[in-house]
């Protein structure tokens, strides 16, 4: 058993609070992604769990045991660092072997262990090289191998793909989930890349300023972001955010977009008459013919292909810029006048002042450490 639990953890540096009364539970075998901008406290949290820094307050439990005052080497953790943190004076083999040596394994066990994990990560041919002779991708795999080799029940991966090139990152993003699942370990994975978070996480914890803003499955985070900030972080191209003031008519609650009333599906009663921000995913917008119901006239400004999508920047008559995304190969407009329609069901509504999403349902919002 290697569940992980943080209870009311506080970490301060000088006068600055880096982690503010944070609580979190990761189930055995679960992969939790810590997602957030730099400076959110993700890395600090990881180091607290690893035991290389100490919390000012709170407890850290691993597998149900209180590890708060236990030194790093006794916590049974494997960790991969963003900058790889390879030992520059040792070969890749020796680097990977260090956790096995700590267990005083025999030479043959070490050799077998290192070679098997190296084969798995496709670095068997560079084991005799020192880090300075390795490519970035090989360094990254070596670092990962070192974290995995001892089969630790708890794996901490600190943005391991950050410093590798795009191609490798893409490959790894495909490989890693299988790799981690095969190990059966509990994983805490830190990233700033939402796609990585979506691809790898059983659950994602979105952090900013030392607080977990939202904790949920990737689906939940994407569909029901807790606030504007999270909505903006997840999704590529980024979500369109427009100031609106919802109103009510007989058909329900609507917002006015370029004189077109777009009716929203959701419990937004409280939003009526308030200053709000509507969040429209670019894929929730689509080009329609003039005269179609709810067609909003726009001017096409520019068009870019993005992966398998085509993203179009359009300008409404009020001059607001909006991104529209459609799968590549589907019809659209690349210039001139056009019309778009909005899928009111997938629209998100946020309070303008606080940025919080309105009408939450199925959404777990965490604030000040209280799990909802």
């Amino acid at each position, binding site marked *: 058993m290697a569940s992980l639990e943080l209870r009311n953890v506080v970490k301060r540096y000088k006068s600055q609070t880096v982690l503010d009364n944070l609580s979190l539970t990761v189930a055995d075998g679960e992969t939790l992604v810590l997602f957030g901008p730099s400076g959110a406290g993700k890395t600090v949290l990881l180091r607290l769990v690893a035991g290389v820094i100490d919390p000012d307050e709170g407890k850290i439990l691993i597998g149900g045991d209180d590890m708060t005052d236990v030194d790093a*080497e*006794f916590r*049974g953790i494997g960790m991969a660092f963003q900058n790889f943190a390879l030992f520059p004076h040792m070969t890749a083999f020796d680097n990977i072997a260090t956790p096995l040596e700590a267990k005083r394994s025999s030479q043959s066990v070490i050799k077998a262990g290192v070679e098997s994990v190296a084969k798995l990560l496709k670095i068997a041919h560079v084991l005799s090289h020192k880090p300075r002779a390795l490519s970035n991708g090989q360094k990254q795999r070596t670092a990962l191998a070192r974290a995995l080799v001892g089969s630790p029940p708890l794996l901490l991966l600190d943005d391991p793909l950050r410093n590798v090139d795009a191609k490798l990152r893409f490959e790894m993003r495909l490989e890693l989930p299988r790799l981690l699942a095969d190990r059966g370990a509990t994983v805490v994975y830190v990233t700033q890349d939402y796609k990585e978070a979506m691809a790898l996480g059983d659950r994602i914890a979105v952090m900013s300023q030392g607080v977990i803003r939202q904790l949920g499955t990737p689906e939940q985070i994407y569909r029901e972001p807790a606030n504007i900030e999270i909505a903006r972080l997840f999704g590529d191209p980024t979500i369109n955010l427009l100031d609106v003031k919802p109103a009510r008519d007989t058909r329900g609650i609507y917002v006015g977009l370029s004189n077109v009333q777009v009716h929203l599906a959701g419990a937004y009663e409280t939003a009526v008459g308030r200053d709000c921000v509507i969040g429209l995913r670019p894929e929730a917008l689509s080009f329609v013919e003039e005269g179609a119901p709810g067609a909003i006239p726009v001017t096409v400004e520019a068009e870019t292909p993005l992966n398998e999508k085509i993203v179009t920047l359009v300008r409404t008559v009020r001059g607001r810029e909006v991104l529209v995304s459609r799968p590549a190969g589907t019809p659209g407009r690349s210039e001139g006048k056009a019309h778009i329609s909005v899928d009111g069901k997938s629209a998100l509504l946020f309070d303008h002042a606080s940025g919080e999403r309105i009408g939450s349902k199925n959404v777990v919002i965490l604030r000040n450490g209280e799990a909802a």
Partner: protein
Amino acid sequence: MTAATTQRAGPSGFRISKRVLPYVLSLPALLVCIGILIPFLTSVVYSFQRYRLSQPWARQFNWGDNYISFFTDPKFWNTLKVSLLYAGTTVVLELLLGLAIAMLLQKRSTLNNFISIMLLMPLMTAPALAALMWKLMTNPGFGVLSYLASLIGLQDFRWASSPSTALFTVVLVDIWVYTPFIMILLLAGLRSLPTQPFEAAALDGVPRSFVFFRITLPMLTPYILTATLFRLLDSIQQFDIIYAMTQGGPGDTLTVFQVEAYLNFFQSTNVGRSAALMIILWAITYFLSNIFIKNWLRLRERARGQA
């Protein structure tokens, strides 16, 4: 058995608490030095006494008299001026020269490595003996440097014996002896700088002067500060070179603190005054190094922030 359970057995073995560990590591060094602190305090007491070894009957506390008398003593102000001038000149020149040499030798090659070790040889020569050799080399008759100077038209260059060139001469010897110290520290510093920023700058075609002032210097600053600090501490306490070359002369041209303190102690046996002089010197170095350390720590902090 899982890894976690095996390892959890560990804490029962030999372990030092995280909080105690740093003290355990640093205390032996501190204790060894503290022993030296006791004589230091004794000297502080001496500095508040009227204490001439040759007049033991007149020994008594005169409290601040030794210090107060300095304020009205033009010789003291001269000492202060000369000491600071000497330290400032040597440190600045050695720093510039040391940095320049380190940059010339920065590229790793067998020749450069060999030259850098060879350049350490002046440092390996005991300053008192080095000064003796320089004194011979600048002798107007037998001195090879005087001879060479005369070949380039300096027929009557008086080196350490003229008030106008004495400072120049001892500074020259100091530079000769101690520049290698700064050079080797900065060379090690230069060579441990990360290469990425430089490669990036080279790719972007950033001008060399910009690279030097905006990348090299800031990254090298902690090393520069360490080297400068140690050099400054030694330089302001310089004795060997000055005493061996000029004994503080001609006139009172080079009566730096240590020369005055030495003469007061060993010749006049005026322990009180000698101790007071050195306490002032100590205070000055304390003050200067405090500034250095503060900056050093700040830079370290910033460097770590960037990483």
